[in-house]
């Protein structure tokens, strides 16, 4: 965090002048390449989403989860055969997954997301009520994890083998091996129970309406837990990318020219090493959702991630499909955007890929 930018304007200019010439034309070319990449990805995304949704229905139907037991809950054991049949009929539990898939798309194109049987609510309402919480929490955590990892990764990568590097790497490895719920419970017992600094769970004081301050105070601990759970892999990726870049011919040549410190880092190391980290960011969304599900459960955060898990267990197809396809779209968008960013930043990447 000490690496703020004290003398950015001048040094940045020197760096870019030393690196390349004719920046304006190249910028326009790269913009074209980037837009073309995004367009192609969009076209590809349409059949991909169709296939992904088909796969979700097929896999969910083949899973060991029994929607009947989810519907009957505690009464599963005492339900008679005729009652089981009544429940199956009422909720269409025996519906063939392919029919269910067609059915779902048929309704979706008319704007109807369907009815969630696990939440006893329209799917659209479930999503509308919970999405802001998950989106807010996950994007805040992802953003801060990315910023912290990139900065810290660059610092320790430049000082490879040093004390800071060794301790940070060891700590990151340890954190990577610690399940998010352990971190969460630790945070709760230290900051909420022992110190009383933050509330333990929920999104507001019980009985109050939602308020900005209530949501923010309640968000702090889950936000820290989720951020901490995402830092290790980002940090380690960034570090190894920096280590690789430092060892590259380009950087050695730059060093030979007498460039060092901040200028070297910003002008020669970071542009090359941020890319793998960015690429990773777009594809690690599933881990983010899994982490969010655990954090949301521990902190009673009223988000979507837990609803996703519940809907999968109960084969609540409308909700499951909406959330899973939504996540798939996010993964596709994430990877397209991180690739676009890569093309934009790195002049070496052509449109071939």
């Amino acid at each position: 965090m000490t690496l703020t930018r004290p003398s950015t304007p001048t040094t940045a200019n020197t760096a870019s002048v030393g690196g390349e010439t004719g920046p304006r034309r190249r910028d326009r070319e790269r913009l074209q390449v980037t837009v073309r990449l995004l367009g192609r990805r969009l076209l590809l995304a349409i059949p991909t989403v169709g296939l992904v949704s088909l796969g979700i229905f097929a896999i969910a139907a083949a899973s060991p989860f029994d929607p009947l037991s989810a519907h009957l809950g505690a009464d599963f054991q005492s339900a008679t055969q005729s009652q089981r049949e009544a429940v199956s009929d009422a909720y269409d539990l025996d519906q063939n997954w392919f029919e269910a898939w067609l059915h779902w798309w048929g309704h979706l194109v008319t704007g109807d997301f369907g009815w969630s049987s696990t939440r006893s609510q329209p799917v659209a309402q479930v999503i509308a009520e919970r999405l802001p919480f998950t989106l807010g929490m996950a994007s805040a955590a992802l953003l801060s994890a990315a910023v912290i990892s990139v900065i810290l990764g660059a610092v320790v990568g430049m000082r490879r083998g040093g004390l800071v590097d060794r301790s940070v790497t060891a700590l990151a490895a340890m954190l990577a091996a610690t399940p998010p719920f352990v971190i969460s419970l630790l945070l709760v017992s230290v900051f909420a129970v022992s110190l009383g600094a933050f509330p333990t769970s929920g999104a507001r004081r019980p009985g109050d309406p939602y308020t900005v301050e209530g949501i923010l105070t309640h968000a702090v601990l889950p936000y820290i837990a989720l951020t901490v759970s995402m830092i290790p892999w980002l940090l380690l990726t960034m570090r190894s990318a920096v280590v690789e870049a430092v060892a590259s011919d380009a950087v050695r040549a730059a060093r030979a020219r007498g460039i060092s410190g901040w200028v070297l880092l910003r002008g020669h190391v970071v542009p090359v090493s941020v890319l793998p980290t960015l690429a990773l960011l777009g594809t690690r969304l599933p881990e983010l959702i899994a982490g969010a599900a655990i954090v949301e459960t521990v902190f009673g955060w009223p988000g979507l991630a837990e609803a996703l898990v519940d809907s999968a267990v109960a084969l609540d197809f409308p909700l499951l499909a909406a959330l899973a396809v939504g996540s798939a779209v996010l993964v596709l968008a994430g990877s397209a955007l991180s690739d676009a960013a890569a093309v934009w930043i790195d002049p070496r990447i052509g449109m071939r890929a």
Partner: protein
Amino acid sequence: MRKRHWLAPAAIAAATVTGIVGCGGTGVSSEARDIIVLGESQELGDFSPMMGYGQQGVSPIYEALLRPGADGDSRVPDLVPALATDTPKRITERVWRLPLRTGVTFSDGSAFDSADVVATYRAVRDPQVASEIATDFAPIVDVTADGPDAVTVRMNTEADPSPYLLLGIAPSETIEAAPAAEWALNTQPVGTGPYQLDSLQPDQAVLVARDGYWGAAPQVTRLVYTFAPDDNTRAQRIIADEIDGANLPPKLAGSLEGREGVSVMAVKSADWRGVSLPSTNAFTADVAARRAMNLAVDRTAVVRDVLAGRGEPASTPIASVYGPAYNPDAQFSFDIDQAAQILDAAGWRPGPDGVRARGGDRASFTLLYNAEDTLRRDLAVAFAAAMTPLGIEVDPRGTSWDEIDTRLDSDAVLLGGGSTPYSIDSQVYDPLHSRVPDSSPYSNPGDFTAPGLDALLDAARQSAPGPANDARYREIQTVYESAPSAVYLAFLHHTYAARSDGWTHDAPILEPHSHGVAWGPWWNLPSWRSDAS
């Protein structure tokens, strides 16, 4: 909503500023005292009797024709009038009449009459509604209106209808010919009870005392359920004084004992756990083997070690709370030597690997349990460990209900029951009777019986309650003991932690299998009176 724009520093800065305000709990003003905040482990919503909400006549929102009433949890509660003005009166064979309370309104302002009772009972048994509790009302043939202010209930036996009159009554206008999960009532409940739903969001439901309730106005005017699915989180929120109570697993509840202002209570239930035994396994199909296994389990140790003492030993589904129907002389006592003798006499001799065998059959079976249920897992492991010294090999394995469904013939299963404890017939008949058509596959899966047991169970079902039927139930336990079909292990006590200093309230009552913060000390909220007033 603006939350997506959060930035980390903003969140932390704002949190630091508001942290002192937000940490709640301490320094509550005196007006806030009539609020109770409870940590709910189940998803909020589904406030409909068709979804099993307000089961057994216990709910802040709904009322049934009758309600349970008792001075504690040591006996089966009396079923006393609620929306009815009197207990059921028998008018002819198997037909009972109940006069209804007049001048009662629902929380939506509509008037309550017999049409609502008829519609609610019709819906709960309607296959189109597919209510999960439909089978709880099997003994009722129909409920019909006898004018606007009375109903008649026709039963299929001579049994007292009272235990089946605990279904929360909803206005007939809210009844839908659609699957129960799709009803509007789930999120907009309408009942005659003392409270009505004020707001419902994914993380919180607020109930408020309503005007126009026919009974005495409750002093607790606001009831907040806050969603806290994680057991540890609920415990920590009680410690941090953010919530006034929650249900907790026994060991976690025990860890809160002795904390300032927190009282931990264990409430009796007829919620049993036991091991069903398969019919196609030569060992478990042998009645001698089933007797031996029943003698070889130290149930007291199971209660002490697995349930942290929060429970009591079970030999049959009939617990001591059933009073005169309970037979204290028909309980299995721990006697491993006698168990070994029984097995020796039946020809099950220890083999070279320590496992008993007879001919080509080994005394070995798999015990399945639902992998999501840690208590069933612990009990399965404890049972397997208890069988080892006797030379019986039990392999406990966690799996899904889906798979258990298909393996009932070949594997033992760790089962639970006791969802409708206020009717001893519902508690006993299905698990002990030999298989009957259209019953649950989990009712006596091995289809074992003892000589005369079915006849006794049928006679008890057909008969009116009273000393003669109590004697029948005692005999049922004696007969069962001679040829047990399963190994019952324990009745659970449900454990709760509450911050209830300054309040006086009714003691908890005997609880059914499903429970939560609608039960425990909060089962009858109108009884909560502040000591200050």
